[in-house]
């Protein structure tokens, strides 16, 4: 069995000790798994990712993470007007492996170019980050994670704002990263997409369910996760309405 890269037990997370945003989080993620982190706006998805990345301290419970963690943020948040090329952004991934007084050298630059090639952007290395399309920016940030050489990737709503071809391209890339033995936690609103991945983690201020999509994504779980946001459609199906983007910072 593949090794466990993240283990959370009785985890509570939030910004103030007396007011946790998220409680009762219990899950384990193994190498090679894509985990959909589902939940409504304000349900705690971003808070969980920020806690896993070390940006927030756990308020209660235990959290064990094996190896480095790479963060792929929402592209809207990354500064579009920054004077950096795609290669510059990929190079930022090397800083976690270099001592503070070292600048990225020739071998690191080669690794950054290889990472851009791996996400299909070798031709765009010298383009300004802010000039790239949404899907390309998302893949540059994945390249940064590859340079970071992290076994765990946290992706915050990576599909928001992507057109269908870009989303399909990202799908293929994430499948490849998982089959390479990485663990991916992907905050998303797309329940149908999550059915194709290995695990789902449903959050609504607390953990509602964790498991394989087949077991976990029952009608009760979806109702408890999305509550009033859920729409019942003709034929008895349940629909999560399209996501309205909110910045949680």
């Amino acid at each position: 069995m593949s090794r466990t890269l993240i283990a959370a037990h009785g985890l509570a997370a939030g910004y103030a000790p007396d007011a946790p945003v998220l409680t009762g989080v219990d899950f384990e993620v193994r190498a090679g798994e894509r985990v959909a982190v589902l939940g409504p706006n304000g349900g705690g998805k971003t808070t969980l990712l920020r806690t896993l990345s070390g940006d927030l301290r756990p308020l209660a419970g235990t959290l064990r993470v094996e190896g480095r963690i790479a963060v792929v943020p929402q592209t809207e948040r990354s500064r579009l007007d920054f004077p950096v090329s795609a290669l510059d952004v990929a190079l930022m991934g090397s800083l976690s492996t270099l001592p503070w007084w070292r600048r990225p050298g020739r071998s690191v630059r080669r690794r950054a170019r290889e990472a851009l090639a791996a996400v299909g952007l070798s031709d765009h290395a010298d383009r300004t980050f802010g000039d790239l399309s949404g899907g390309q920016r998302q893949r540059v940030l994945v390249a940064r994670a590859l340079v970071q050489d992290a076994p765990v990737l946290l992706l915050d709503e990576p599909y928001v704002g992507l057109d269908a071809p870009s989303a399909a391209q990202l799908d293929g890339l994430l499948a490849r990263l998982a089959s390479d033995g990485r663990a991916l936690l992907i905050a998303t609103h797309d329940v149908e997409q999550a059915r194709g991945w290995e695990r789902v983690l449903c959050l609504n201020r607390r953990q509602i369910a964790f498991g394989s999509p087949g077991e976990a994504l029952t009608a009760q779980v979806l109702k408890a996760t999305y509550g009033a946001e859920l729409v019942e459609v003709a034929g008895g199906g349940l629909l999560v309405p399209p996501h309205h983007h909110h910045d949680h910072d």
Partner: protein
Amino acid sequence: MMRISLMLGPFDLPYVQRALVEIALLSAGASVLGTWVVLRGLSFYAHATATATFPGLVLAAGLGFSPLLGAAATAGALALGVAALGDRRDAGRDTATALVLVAALAAGVVLASDVFHSQGSIESLLFGSLLTIDLADQAAAAAVGALALILGAVLGARWLAVGFDPAAARALGVRSPLFDAALLALVAAMAVVTVQAVGALLAGALLVVPAATTRLLVDRVGRWQLATAALALAEGAVGLWLAVELNAPPGATIAVLSAAVFAAVAIARTVADARPGRLENAPAGTAAP
């Protein structure tokens, strides 16, 4: 030939030459550091630390100790206060900085008028005395400038990564508070040496405005820094020449010239961006569809 040598006449004067050397040193140091100031949103902090030198300068003149020491003491106090507020990005930090800025100006004026009765020096402390620069001022500008270039070369990649994506900074291993503290301390030190040339209220003319101007035209950090040093040197030299020719205060002349160039470039940039088909080359925030 005759006409050129007449035009360059002011630069034959030794005190104008000393001023020009000071401008060159600050262009390489303060203006290049200014790119980090602009990129990391520290323009107001830079202005505030420069202004905070004012009461220190009044004290130094009144009690007869080194103006650099007096300026460093009060600017350092403000820098420590801002660093203690940490990375609070809310309005609280800016409000606190603004309060200290006002208090520093008021304290300086009260000290000058009621304690040391040195009102006459207020103008040169606030708006600079580029034509009375001495070797000690130049040495200080050279030392802090060299430090800024070295720290920028070593820590620049980290300053860039944190500014680009603060949320991922910890995961990237660049969240150490020391990196940002070094930048804050460096900006304060640079404000202190810049104040000797262009005064407590006009330090931004060298520390912020050239970098903000070239940012509109250049979209890579390295090129931006080179362009900023070149522009600051050109603006400083032309401003100095104009000041001598027109018998105007040099710090204020350089500041007015820099602001005018910024306005002209900003307007040109806006017009160029508005023309269809030109979006491809725009550096700032104009994402392709």
